[in-house]
Every structure is written in structure tokens, then in C-alpha cells.
């Protein structure tokens, strides 16, 4: 390996340190005009009328759009086509776009928003998920499982009731995970224009240009082939730029109507209201264990506050119950999840998508189990870690597992055995583990096509261009693309130009979500490069009369492995191949292996392979103030193979950082305006001043260790790293707080107030805990019953009996 595995400057680093990276808001086009959105001031209302005449009368205002101008609904999931670019007759949260003003400059457009007259009829505001569970009218949407319940999931794998009944101990715990948001430093921005041949172009800070392409074609009723979506480098995404957004559809329509480029850049406040971030999740874990800690069965229930639209919510719901089984062996498993609509900004995917919430509960409960059974928490996890190359109870095919080694590494580095439960009051260590997908096994819309495609163009200059629809959101996908191609062809990264995220120029890649890019694009890139290498090798082999198998591609040369002096430059090899075969262009593609899960709902959770992480967090808790400091974090991540260790470390440490924010301070929460105003439900902190996120002063020292056992399913053995390392941190912090001061904070954020409250309870002899008291009684549908593999199951569900019985919570 010449490139893979070596610490290297990423291919786009120069542009980023010189300010030359062109983000969406940096685009300035001739004749460009500016768009602002009028957003609803009410959380739930009928739109009775919109009068734009006063706005349109303003000098410099060119266009006002309302719902009727873009009436076709869209949405990221085929099952949740519930969004309109502008409200048709209903607004569902404060911030829901109602009208769009396009004007000669941003200020004129902004000023004209006040001149659009909208009459509303307020409707009941659903502020809490419990309200949505019990009150069916008015419905926020005319679809969903019932009333204001968007989605109910009930899955059963094996005889959980018997497993819990026969267990030595059953632990029953509830947890709450508060919502929080992505907070990318770049606000969403986009520019739409009609290109010289009359087709539409949209530049946007999106993580998923392919899905935006599809949504635009639908919402504008235009042939997809006449729309070009270009993903500009994202100034941070973290899942927040994965949906097709109102503003993208609106400016596309405006550009078509005005035949002028139209730009929009959201304000920071608008970004908070666009959200699509972490769902608030209330959850209950019932887990049966034997005396030695072996899990006999687990029953997980989750209630998700989805906000006002579907977004990725159906997938998010399944994800709260999908990955419990891939870390530890769980012989029987039941999952019941429920997502409700409320009149708040829609929740969606944030780094870890649906899994951090339940991982938080699972890992804290394991800590409690370990303590009750007098087993060291690290030892407990080592006993129950899932076996590699197995099929879990819910039919997830697990590949390599480096989790045990991760646990051993972090406990050794943190001197766990000498310090856990042995430090003075106020100082503590906590351990937690996790696992994450290396790419979703199924696409968002059903199809049999590849998930990622790569095309290579080689020409007589010796230069190579790599085309792929993957999107650079800061994670380094361009670097992975170039590195994989350079490694196979034996050239340097600088010899390759990456053209990415452009639906006109690049083959489809589904986008930067679900930690899928390195594995899927990487495999496609390797295939394309190997096909190019084979053509070059055939041409060189004939010219030099050397068997093709003996040829080596390295150091920008193609040469005989038996005699390295015999060979030629890479550019000469391309010329030979071009002369022999014609223009050199190859393709590669990647489709994940077929999932073993064949039941309804089995589409969420399967992945080609899973990454594993273990972490030990050290905390210092001041018992007089409840203040938590984190001096050190040890984290070991099973990456398979690190393609570029500099980038891998950046993903691990960035995950630790984001997790600390979620654990200690970040929350996307809402309040009612006072009665003298509208009583509208508004964001408590829609600014970067009030929404607290960790600064340089809050960041601990992070000791990152990479566990590298190449996984045959990954490119050069690589697995994901973008999301998994976030997951263990929040529960590890909670567990460390318990070690430090003996109180359980069973919810995030873990604030000083909650710690003080729990310490007060402890001092008063009450349960030293802050967390939800109970899980609501939900009348779940009868579970889909899928026998696990060890009970002779084949991944399909048993036929439902008629008159399906309700299962009591």
C-alpha cells in the first residue's frame, strides 16, 4: 500500500485553508436576485388567505410565491410525501414557510416579507407527544397510523416473555433523550438558475443531491433529465442537510419564472427552525439477565416526538430499535416504537440517526446491571459481546467485530482496573460501547440499482478524472475517492481530479448519510480503477511481452515485478491503452448484499458491516454546584482499516466533541410565548449565543485508538467512522457521573441542576436519580412475529392470526 493507511493531507485541504472552497453562499452570478421566506408565526393554523399585493408594489420586488405556485407535495421518504414548498392551507409549526419574496437584494426581500398579509385561523397546538398520543383531532396530517400517531412499529423475535420470566433478574428502566440540533457553522444556502439551454440548475449545500434531484423533478413536474443539482461543499452537515428543503424548491421555481439566478441563504434562526435533528425519545428497557450477566431477552419501547413532518421519521423510529442486537448477544428481542406528530420543527436524522437515544438507555442499564450483579462493567461487556459473522435475532448480519479489543484497549489506557469505583468522591470513570452501520443496506426508495457509481476518465496526459455523485460535507469523501483510485493505479492523489456531487456529470451516489460513502463509493472506485488498470495492463503486457499478472502499478509507473527496471511511465501506459482500445473510461458500482431480514420493517438496520466503539470517559463533578468537567476521554474504534488516519482521527474526535455537547448542554426545546403575545410554541434558543455548544475550553483531551482488522466487505477493509464514535460517549458520561457522585441521571442533557437535584434526593434518602418516571401506556398493534435464526426462522414473519390481540405495555 502506497497511499492507503498513510497519514496524508486531504485532497481538498489547500482550498480549505486558503478560503478558495466555494460554498453555496459564495456563488455570485450575473443578474442574480435574492429570496426570503415568510414563515408562520403560529404553530398550528389554517391559512385563510394570503394577500401579496402590498409586497409586490414595492420597488425591487420581482415575485411573490405562495403555496398554489408549487402545489405538489414531496418528502424524503416515499411513505411520507407530506411537505409542500409553501403552505397550501395549513401551517404546522412556527417557521413553516408560507410565502416567498424574490427581490433585487436580500434587504428588499426581507423588508417586503412584512407586507405579505396572511390571515390564519389558529388550531390546537400539540406541544407534547403525550398530547398527540391521546388527542386525535385536529389531525396535523391526514395520514399516519391513527390520529396524530405517525408510525407504530411492533416487532417480536423469539419468546421474550418466557426469556424475561426465566431470567434471574429483570431490569426495567426508563430514560429520556432530549432533542438537539446539528448546528453546522454554514447556514443552508442555495442558488437556482436557468442554464443557457433552458434547463434548471440548483447549487445547494445538500448532503443528498440525488434525492433533491428527485424531489425537484416531482415538485416542479419537470423531467429529471432537465434538472441539474450540484452539491456545493457543505460547511458541515451532520444529517441536517439530508432532506429536500422548501427553499430549494422555491428558488428553483422562482428561477424558472424569472429566468434569473435566485439565491437564498437561511438565517441562523431559520436553520434552527428547519432542524431535522435528533428526535426527543422517551424509552423503556426491560432486560432479563442470568446471574453471570448473560442477557436472556430484551424488550425495548420508544416514543419519538417527531415534530411537524415525516422527514426520515419512519426510518428514525425503526432505528431506535434496530441496533441493540449487534453489540451484545440477545437471544430474544421485542421492539415497539411510536412516532407522533407535534407542532414543532420536524425531527430527522442527526449523526447516529435514531440510535444514540436507545444506545444511551442500553448502556446505562448495562452499567446498572453490572453493579447489581457485582460484575465489573467492562468484564460484563466482554462476556456478552456478539460473535463475529453471525445473524442476530432481528436478522442483521454482523461481520467483523473488534469490540472486545476496543474494550480492552480503553480500559487499559484509562487504567480502569485501578481507578473505577476507587477514586475520591467527585471524580469518576464511565464505560460504554456501541456499534453503527457502514451504510444503510437499502436505498430510501425501492430499486435494484447500485447505491454508488464511479466513472473514471483516463487520457494521454496521464491524468485521471474520477466522477462520483458522493457529496463532500467535510468528512473527506473526495479524499477517499481519490485515494482508492490512486492506490489501485499506482499514481499520486494530486494526479487525480475528483468531480463529485453533480447530477449532470457524475453517476449516482445516494448521498452522504448513514455512514455509507467510504464503504460504498470506495468499493465502486476500486472496481472502476481495477477495470482501468486491467486495460492498461493488457496494452503494456503486449508491448513489453510480459504477462499482465507480473505488472506492478506503483510510483507512477507500470513495471515488471521480476525486473522493476523494465516498464514505462503511467502516462505512456495510458497512451498505449488508448491506442489499442480507444478512449479509456471505466465504471464501477456497488450494491450492498441482500439482507437476511425479509419481514416488513426489516429494511432498516441491515448494513454491509458494522463498526464498533468503546469509550471510557473521566469526569470531575463538583458536588456543591453540580458542574461537570471532562478532563479525558479514551476511545477505541474498530474501523476495519483506516484509509487516511488523519481523517479517521478527525471523525472520532469530532464525534466525541458533538457527543459531549449532547450529553451536557445542547437541547432543541420549546416554550410558549406569553398570553399577551400569541402563546405560540417557539424555540427556546434559536441562536448560537443561547444554544450552548462546546468551545475549545470545554474540549477534553481525547486519546484515540484505532482497531484495524480489515473487513473483507469494506474497501481495503475499511468500515465507517463518521457516526459510530459519537454513540458511547453520552452513556459513558452518565455512567462516569454515577461513579463520581453516586447519582443516576437517566436523561440528557446532564445539567448541573439535575445533578444537584439527584444529590439532594440522595441526601434525603430518596432514590438518587433524575429521569422519567414511567413510559406511557400505548396500545401497540400486535407484533410482527419473526422467529430468530436459532429457532429455525428464515427471516420472514409468522402469519398474523385474525383479531390480533393488543399487547399491553
Amino acid at each position, binding site marked *: 500500500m502506497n497511499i492507503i493507511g498513510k497519514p496524508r*493531507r*486531504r485532497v*481538498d*485541504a*489547500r*482550498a*480549505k*485553508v*486558503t*478560503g*478558495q*472552497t*466555494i*460554498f453555496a*453562499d*459564495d456563488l*455570485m452570478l450575473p443578474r442574480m436576485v435574492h429570496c426570503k421566506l415568510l414563515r408562520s408565526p403560529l404553530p398550528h393554523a389554517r391559512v385563510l388567505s394570503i394577500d401579496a399585493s402590498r409586497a409586490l408594489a*414595492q*420597488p*425591487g420586488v420581482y415575485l411573490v410565491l405562495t403555496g398554489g405556485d408549487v402545489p405538489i407535495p414531496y418528502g424524503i421518504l416515499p411513505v411520507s410525501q407530506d411537505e409542500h414548498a409553501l403552505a397550501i392551507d395549513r401551517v404546522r409549526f412556527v417557521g413553516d414557510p408560507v410565502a416567498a419574496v424574490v427581490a433585487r437584494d436580500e434587504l*428588499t426581500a426581507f*423588508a417586503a416579507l412584512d407586507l405579505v398579509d396572511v390571515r390564519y385561523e389558529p388550531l390546537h397546538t400539540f406541544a407534547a407527544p403525550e398530547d398527540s398520543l391521546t388527542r386525535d383531532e385536529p389531525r396535523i396530517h391526514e395520514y399516519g397510523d391513527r390520529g396524530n400517531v405517525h408510525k407504530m412499529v411492533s416487532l417480536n423475535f423469539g419468546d421474550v416473555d418466557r426469556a424475561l420470566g426465566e431470567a434471574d433478574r429483570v431490569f426495567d428502566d426508563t430514560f429520556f433523550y432530549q432533542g438537539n440540533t*446539528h*448546528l*453546522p*457553522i*454554514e*447556514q443552508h444556502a442555495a442558488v437556482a438558475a436557468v442554464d443557457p439551454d433552458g434547463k434548471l440548475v440548483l447549487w445547494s449545500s445538500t448532503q443528498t443531491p440525488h434525492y433533491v434531484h428527485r424531489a425537484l423533478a416531482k415538485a416542479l413536474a419537470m423531467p429529471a433529465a432537465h434538472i441539474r443539482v450540484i452539491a456545493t*461543499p*457543505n*460547511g*458541515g*452537515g*451532520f444529517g441536517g442537510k439530508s432532506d429536500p428543503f422548501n427553499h430549494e424548491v422555491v428558488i428553483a421555481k422562482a428561477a424558472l419564472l424569472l429566468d434569473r439566478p435566485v439565491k437564498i441563504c437561511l*438565517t*441562523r434562526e431559520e436553520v434552527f427552525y428547519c432542524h431535522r435533528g435528533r428526535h426527543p425519545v422517551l424509552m423503556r428497557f426491560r432486560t432479563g439477565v442470568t446471574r453471570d450477566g448473560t442477557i436472556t431477552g430484551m424488550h425495548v419501547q420508544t416514543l419519538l416526538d417527531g415534530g411537524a413532518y415525516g422527514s426520515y421519521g419512519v426510518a428514525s423510529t425503526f432505528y431506535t430499535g434496530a441496533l441493540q442486537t449487534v453489540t451484545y448477544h440477545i437471544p430474544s428481542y421485542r421492539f415497539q416504537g411510536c412516532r407522533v406528530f407535534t407542532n414543532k420543527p420536524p425531527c430527522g436524522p442527526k449523526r447516529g440517526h435514531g440510535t444514540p437515544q436507545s444506545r444511551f438507555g442500553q448502556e446505562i442499564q448495562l452499567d446498572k446491571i453490572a453493579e447489581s450483579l457485582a460484575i465489573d462493567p467492562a468484564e460484563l461487556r466482554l462476556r456478552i459481546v456478539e460473535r463475529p459473522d453471525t445473524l442476530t435475532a432481528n436478522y442483521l448480519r454482523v461481520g467483523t467485530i473488534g469490540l472486545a479489543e476496543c474494550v480492552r484497549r480503553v480500559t487499559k489506557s484509562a487504567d480502569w482496573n485501578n481507578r473505577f469505583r476507587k477514586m475520591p468522591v467527585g471524580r469518576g470513570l464511565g464505560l460504554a460501547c456501541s456499534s453503527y452501520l457502514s451504510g444503510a443496506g437499502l436505498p430510501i426508495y425501492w430499486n435494484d440499482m447500485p447505491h454508488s457509481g464511479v466513472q473514471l476518465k483516463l487520457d494521454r496526459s496521464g491524468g485521471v478524472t474520477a466522477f462520483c455523485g458522493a457529496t463532500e*460535507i*467535510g*468528512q*473527506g469523501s473526495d479524499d477517499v475517492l481519490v485515494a482508492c483510485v490512486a492506490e489501485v493505479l499506482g499514481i499520486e492523489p494530486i494526479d487525480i481530479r475528483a468531480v463529485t456531487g453533480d447530477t449532470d456529470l457524475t453517476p449516482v451516489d445516494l448521498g452522504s448519510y448513514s455512514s455509507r460513502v467510504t464503504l460504498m463509493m470506495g468499493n465502486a472506485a476500486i472496481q472502476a480503477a481495477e477495470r482501468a488498470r486491467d486495460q492498461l495492463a493488457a496494452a503494456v503486457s503486449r508491448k513489453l511481452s510480459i504477462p499482465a499478472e507480473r505488472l506492478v502499478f506503483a510510483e507512477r509507473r507500470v513495471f515488471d515485478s521480476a525486473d522493476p527496471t523494465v516498464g514505462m511511465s503511467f502516462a505512456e501506459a495510458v497512451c498505449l491503452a488508448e491506442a489499442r482500445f480507444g478512449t479509456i473510461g471505466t465504471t464501477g458500482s456497488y450494491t450492498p448484499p441482500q439482507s437476511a431480514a425479509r419481514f416488513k420493517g426489516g429494511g432498516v438496520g441491515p448494513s454491509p458491516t458494522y463498526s464498533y466503539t468503546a469509550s471510557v470517559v473521566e469526569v470531575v463533578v463538583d458536588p456543591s454546584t453540580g458542574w461537570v468537567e471532562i478532563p479525558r476521554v479514551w476511545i477505541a474504534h474498530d474501523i476495519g482499516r483506516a484509509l487516511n488516519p*488523519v*481523517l479517521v*482521527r*478527525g471523525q472520532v*474526535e*469530532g*464525534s*466525541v*466533541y*458533538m457527543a459531549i455537547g449532547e450529553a451536557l448542554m445542547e437541547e432543541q426545546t420549546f416554550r410558549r410565548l406569553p398570553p399577551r403575545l400569541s402563546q405560540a410554541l417557539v424555540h427556546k434558543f434559536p*441562536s*448560537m*449565543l443561547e444554544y450552548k*455548544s462546546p*468551545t*475549545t*475550553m470545554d*474540549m477534553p*483531551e*481525547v486519546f484515540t485508538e484505532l482497531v484495524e482488522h480489515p473487513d473483507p466487505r469494506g474497501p481495503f477493509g475499511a468500515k465507517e467512522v463518521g457516526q459510530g464514535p459519537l454513540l458511547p460517549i453520552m452513556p459513558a458520561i452518565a455512567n462516569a457521573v454515577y461513579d463520581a457522585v453516586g447519582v443516576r441521571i437517566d436523561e440528557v442533557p446532564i445539567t448541573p441542576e439535575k445533578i444537584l437535584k439527584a444529590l439532594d434526593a440522595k441526601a434525603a434518602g430518596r432514590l438518587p436519580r433524575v429521569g422519567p418516571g414511567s413510559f406511557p401506556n400505548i396500545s401497540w398493534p400486535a407484533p410482527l412475529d419473526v422467529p430468530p435464526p436459532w429457532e429455525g426462522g428464515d427471516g420472514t414473519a409468522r402469519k398474523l392470526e385474525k383479531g390480533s390481540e393488543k399487547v399491553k405495555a
Partner: protein
Amino acid sequence: MPMPRHASITLTVNGEPVDAAFAPYKTLLEVLREDLHLCGTKHGCELGECGACAVLLDGQPVLSCLVLGLECEGRIVTTVEGLASDGRLHPLQETFADLGAAQCGYCTPGFLVTAKALLDETPHPTREQIKEALSGNLCRCTGYQQIFEAVEAAIEGSAESLALRPTTATPQAANVARAFQASDPSDQQ
């Protein structure tokens, strides 16, 4: 609404004298991005909290979203575009690029100029001094650690050239250097 009249000022941007005409309410950030087409400087929060818009004003880091363009008459502004000289990257740019200190790159210009101001004033800062100097810059990607390391590498790797190069490389840069010496930090906010 009435079309706002333009104000005209002369200032020095990245070593070059510049005339700028702009609506008087514009912030320095808007003047740089919209009127001078220096888009390397970013906006992130609109209220001086994130540090993405940091530039050097007479050598001191300021949040350009909180500075009016009109306040900059006769002053010296350095943006990320002015860090490289003679076709060579500033040592901080080299170390940020090599050590993973820039992921998405959106906060990077603000970090770079803030770090440059630190090193100009404190050539051998400790880790704590680096943390404190950069505490007004938010990064959501890196977890900051690789940024700290990049700043430290720029100290260790090329302390001499760092002290000399940006101020002596070009006549314009020499002007900047003089201006730095002339300006009294206590004059700044």
C-alpha cells in the same frame, strides 16, 4: 423604500490599498464578501458568537459581522486570502492542511486568522493559551484537538520563517508590518 446611498472609504486589504463604496449600514463582513468579493471570510451566526467571520483589523482579530464597514477608513484588514505570500502558504495554512485541522473548512478562515494573531503576539503559546485565544471560534467538525495540534506544529516547525515571512515578503506586506508596529493594541476593542 429609498435606495440607500453609498459611502466611500479607502482601506488596506491584504496589503493592497482598496477603495470601497457600499451602503453605509453594511458590516465589514458584508463589504468584504459582497463589495470586495473576498468570500473566504464566512458568516455563521449574525451576532458575533461563532467566529467564522473573524478577520484581522490592524493586526487584531475582530468579528467582522460586528464591525461596520464605515469604521474601517484608513485601517488595515487581513483576511484568509491574505495569509499566503509569494505563492507560499502561511505555516499555519500548511499545518492546518496537513494535520486535519480543516474538515468542512467553513470555520477554518476564522481560526487561521485568529491563530495568526496569537502567534504574532505570542510566538510560543502554551496549549492553554491556544485554547483561550481560539475560544471565540466554534468548530462543529474537528473537536478542536487537531486544530490545537496544527497551531502547535506551526510554532515548532517554522518559528523563524513565521516571524519573518509575512512582513517582509512584499512591499505591501511591509506596509502591513509597519502598520502592525504603529498600531497600539489598546486602541482596539
